C-alpha cells in the first residue's frame, strides 16, 4: 500500500455551518504531511473524521485501507493521536494517563515510554489537575509516541510547548519519519512544518486549496530577487510575472512568479549583475497568498460597515 489516507469530496456540516466542504486529501505512506490552515478552517474536524469521532456526511474516506467510521476499533491500535488541547483526568497522574491510553490501544513500549518521559522532562507522578498546558501536551505526546504506530495524527501537537521542547518534538518526529511511519501534522507553526514535512496541504474554508511538495509550491509562487547591477535597470516592470519592482541607481528589488524567473534573470543580466540574492517564498508567504484575498474581503467588509464576510 502506498496511500495511508485518501479523502475525496468529504463534507461535514454542523447545523448550518459547512465545516468541511468537499475536502480532498491524500497522504502517502511514509511521508510527513503538513496540514496547514488558520483556526476554524477544518483541520481538527478532518482529523476527527479520521478518528471515527465524527461521522462524514458525504464523500469517501479511507485510512490504512479501512473505513475510519465503521472500522474504528480495528484501525485505532495502528494509529496514535495527539489533540491540540489536551484534557486530563484531574485525579490521575500523568504516568497513569500515559499507561492507560497506551494499554487501551493495545500495549506500549515500556522502555520507549520511560525514554520519552526523560527526553520531554515530564514528571509522571503529578496529578492531571496540577499540570500546565504544556505539560498536559507532553503527556499526550508521550502516550502517542510510546508505541510503534503506523500513522500519527497530530493536531497542533506542540501548542503550549516551550522552544526547547519544540526541538525535542521535531527530533522525535524526525525519528518516526526515518522509521518509515506516516505523519499527518496539522499546524500553524510554519517553521515546524517547513522543517518536517515532505508534502503540504493548505486548507481554507473546509477545502484543500493547494497540495504538493514545498518545492512544487514554491515554484507556483513568487521568488524575491535583490540585485546590484552596473547600470540602471529599465523595462523590468513590463516583463510578465514581475511584481513590486523597486528600481534604484544600481540596485533593484522585485518579486517574480516562479514560471517567469528565467526571463527576469535573463533581462537582468543585460545590465551587468554584480551581486544577486534570491529568497524562496516562505510558508508564511504561501499562506498569506492563499488567505490574502480573504483578508482583502475582510477589509472591504469593514469599510462597508458590515461584518458578515468576516470569518475567524
Amino acid at each position, binding site marked *: 500500500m502506498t496511500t495511508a489516507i485518501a479523502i475525496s469530496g468529504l463534507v461535514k456540516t454542523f447545523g448550518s455551518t459547512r465545516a468541511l466542504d468537499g475536502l480532498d486529501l491524500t497522504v502517502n505512506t511514509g511521508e510527513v504531511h503538513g496540514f496547514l490552515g488558520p483556526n476554524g478552517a477544518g483541520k*481538527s474536524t478532518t482529523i*476527527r473524521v479520521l*478518528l*471515527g*469521532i*465524527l*461521522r462524514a456526511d458525504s464523500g469517501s474516506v479511507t485510512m490504512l485501507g479501512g473505513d475510519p467510521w465503521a472500522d*474504528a*476499533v480495528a484501525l*485505532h*491500535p495502528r*494509529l496514535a*493521536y495527539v*489533540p491540540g*488541547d*489536551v*484534557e*486530563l*483526568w*484531574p*485525579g*490521575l*497522574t500523568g*504516568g*497513569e*494517563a*500515559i*499507561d*492507560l*491510553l*497506551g*494499554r*487501551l*490501544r*493495545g500495549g506500549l513500549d515500556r522502555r520507549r515510554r520511560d525514554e520519552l518521559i526523560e527526553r520531554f522532562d515530564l514528571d*509522571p*507522578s*503529578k*496529578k492531571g*489537575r*496540577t499540570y500546565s498546558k504544556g505539560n498536559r501536551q507532553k503527556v*499526550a505526546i508521550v*502516550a502517542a509516541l510510546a508505541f510503534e504506530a503506523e500513522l500519527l*495524527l497530530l493536531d497542533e501537537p506542540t501548542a503550549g510547548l516551550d522552544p526547547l521542547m519544540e526541538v525535542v518534538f521535531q527530533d522525535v518526529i524526525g525519528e518516526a519519519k526515518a522509521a518509515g511511519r506516516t505523519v499527518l501534522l496539522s499546524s500553524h507553526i510554519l517553521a515546524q512544518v517547513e522543517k518536517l514535512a515532505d508534502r503540504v496541504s493548505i486548507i481554507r474554508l473546509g477545502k484543500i486549496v493547494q497540495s504538493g511538495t514545498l518545492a512544487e509550491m514554491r515554484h507556483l509562487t513568487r521568488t524575491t530577487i535583490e540585485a546590484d547591477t552596473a547600470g540602471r535597470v529599465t523595462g523590468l516592470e513590463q516583463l510578465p510575472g514581475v511584481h513590486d519592482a523597486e528600481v534604484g541607481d544600481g540596485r533593484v528589488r522585485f518579486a517574480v512568479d516562479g514560471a517567469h524567473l528565467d526571463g527576469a534573470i535573463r533581462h537582468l543580466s543585460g545590465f551587468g549583475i554584480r551581486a544577486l540574492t534570491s529568497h524562496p517564498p516562505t510558508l508564511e508567504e504561501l499562506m498569506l497568498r492563499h488567505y490574502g484575498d480573504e483578508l482583502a474581503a475582510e477589509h472591504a467588509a469593514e469599510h462597508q460597515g458590515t461584518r458578515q464576510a468576516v470569518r475567524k
Partner: protein
Amino acid sequence: MTATATPAVGRTTERAGGGALAGTGVLLRFDLRRDRVRVPVWLAALTLGTLWVAAAFPQLYPTAAERQAAAATMNSPAGLAFTGPAHYLSDYYYGSMLSHQMLGFMVIMVGIMSVLMVARHTRTEEETGRAELVRAAVVGRHAQLAAALILTVAVNIALALLLTLSLGSLGIGGVTWAGSLLYGAAHAAAGITFAGVAAVTVQITEHSRGASGMGLAVVGAAYLVRAAGDSAGSGLSWASPIGWAQQTFAYLDNHWWPLLLNLAAAAALAALGFALSTRRDLGAGLRAARRGRPEASRALTTPLGFALRLHRGMLIGFAVGMLVLGMSYGPFLADVETKLQSVEVLKEALAQLGGATFVDSFIAMIMTLLAVVAAIYVVIATLRPRSEESSGRAEPVLATGLSRAGWLGSHLAVALVGGPVMILLAGLALAATGAPTVDESGLFWEIIAAAAAYIPALWVTAGLAVALVGWFPRASALAWLVVVYAGVVGYFGTILRFPGWMSNLSPFGHIPRIPVEGFSWTPLLVLTAIAAGLIALGLYGFRRRDLETK
C-alpha cells in the same frame, strides 16, 4: 501573599471602590446575568411547590377531626423525624400544618440552591481558570466571593418575599400575613446560613464538585440532626440551622429570634471563608495536592478498571451515606410499633390497606425514599461518561482500541451494579439496626427483599439516562426528572393523597411495596425488560452519533 502598597496601586484600588472588594458590583451584575434563567427557575419551583401543598390542605383535611387525626399520625418519632418538632401539633391548623410538614423539607432545597450558587460563582470559576482572567482585571481578592454571597443572599430574600406575598394572599385559614412573613424569612435565613457554609467549603478543596459536595453534606447532616432531635423531643434540634428555622413555629407562635442564630452563624461562616481565602493561592485548596503513582496499575488500564477509578470517590461516598441513612431509620421501627398502636383511627386506615402492620407500612415508606436516593447515584453515575465527553477527555480514549460501546458500557456497568449495591446497603443497615428491636419474625429478610425489589426501577432509571446520552446528549440532564418525579411522588404522595396514575408514571411506582404488599415477579421482569431495551437503544444511538468535541 501580602498586598504591596505602592502609591499607584493605592490610587487604583481607591478609585475602583476599596481594595479587596474592588469590582464586586461589576461581578455581581455579571453573576446575575449568568444566572438569569437559573434563579427564576429555582424561585418559581420553590414558591409554586409550597403554594401547591398549602392550597391542597383545605381539601385534604376539611374538618377539625381530620386535622386532629393527621396530627395523631404525625405524633410518633418516625413522623416527627420526617417533619418537624412536636409543638406544631398542639394546634394543627392549615398554617401550622404547612410549617410543620413543609418547612424542613423546603429548607433542604433552599440549602441546595444556596450551596450550588456560591460554589458555581467561586470555586467553579477558579477550577476552570476563568477566575484568573477576572482577577487580572481591577478586581479585589475578596470580590468574587463577596459577589457570590450577595447574589445568594439577594435570591434568598427574593424567595422570602415571594413566599410571603403568595401565601398571605391565598386567604387560607390559619395562614396569616404575620405567619407568612416569618415562614418566608425562615427559608431565607436558613438558606443564607448554608451560603455561609459554602463560603467555607469552597476554600477547602480545589474542586467545585468536592466543595459543593461538602456543602450539601452539611445540609444533609443538618436535616439528620434536627430529625434526631425532633423525634426524640430533645434539644438536639437546636444544633441544626434547619432546626432553628423550624423553632420559629411560624403560624403558631411566630418567634422571630431563632433566625438570629441563622444570621449570626452565616456571618461567622462568611467571615471564616474570607479569612481562609487569604491563606491560599488562587486555584489552590487549603489541602495540598498529593503526588501519585508514576505508573498505572494493571487494573486501571482495563476499560472497567478505568471507569471504576473515575467513579471511585462517588461510589464510596454514596455507599457510606446509604449505610448512615439506613442506620438512622432503623431505631425508629420499635417506636412505630409501640406508639402508633394506641391510635385507633390509624389502625382502621391500615386495616383497609390489607391488614399491614405499622412497621410494615413504615418500612415500605422509608424504602421508597431510600430508593430515590439510590436513583440519585444511578443518574450521577450514568451521566458521568457524558461529562467525560463534553470536557474533551473522552476523545483521546476513543482514539484508542476501545470501542464506543465498550467505553460507555463500562461506565454503565458501574451504574447498573452500583445502584443495586446502594439500595441493598441501605436495606441491610435498616434491617440490621431495626429488625432485632421488633417482635416480628422474618422481618430482616423482608426488609432486604423490599430493598431488592427496587433494583429493576434503578435499572430503568439508568436506561433512560443512557438513552438520553445516546440520542439527545445535550438534553441528558433531563434524566434528573425521573429522580425528581419519584421523589415528589414518594414524599408528597402520602401527604397529598395523589391518584394512582401519578405514581404509575414513575418506574418506582410499579415496584411492589414490600412488606405491605406481597412479592410479585411480573412488574419486576417487565421493568427489567424495559431497562434492557433502553440500554440497547442508548448504546446503539451512541455508536452512530458524532462525539461532541470542544
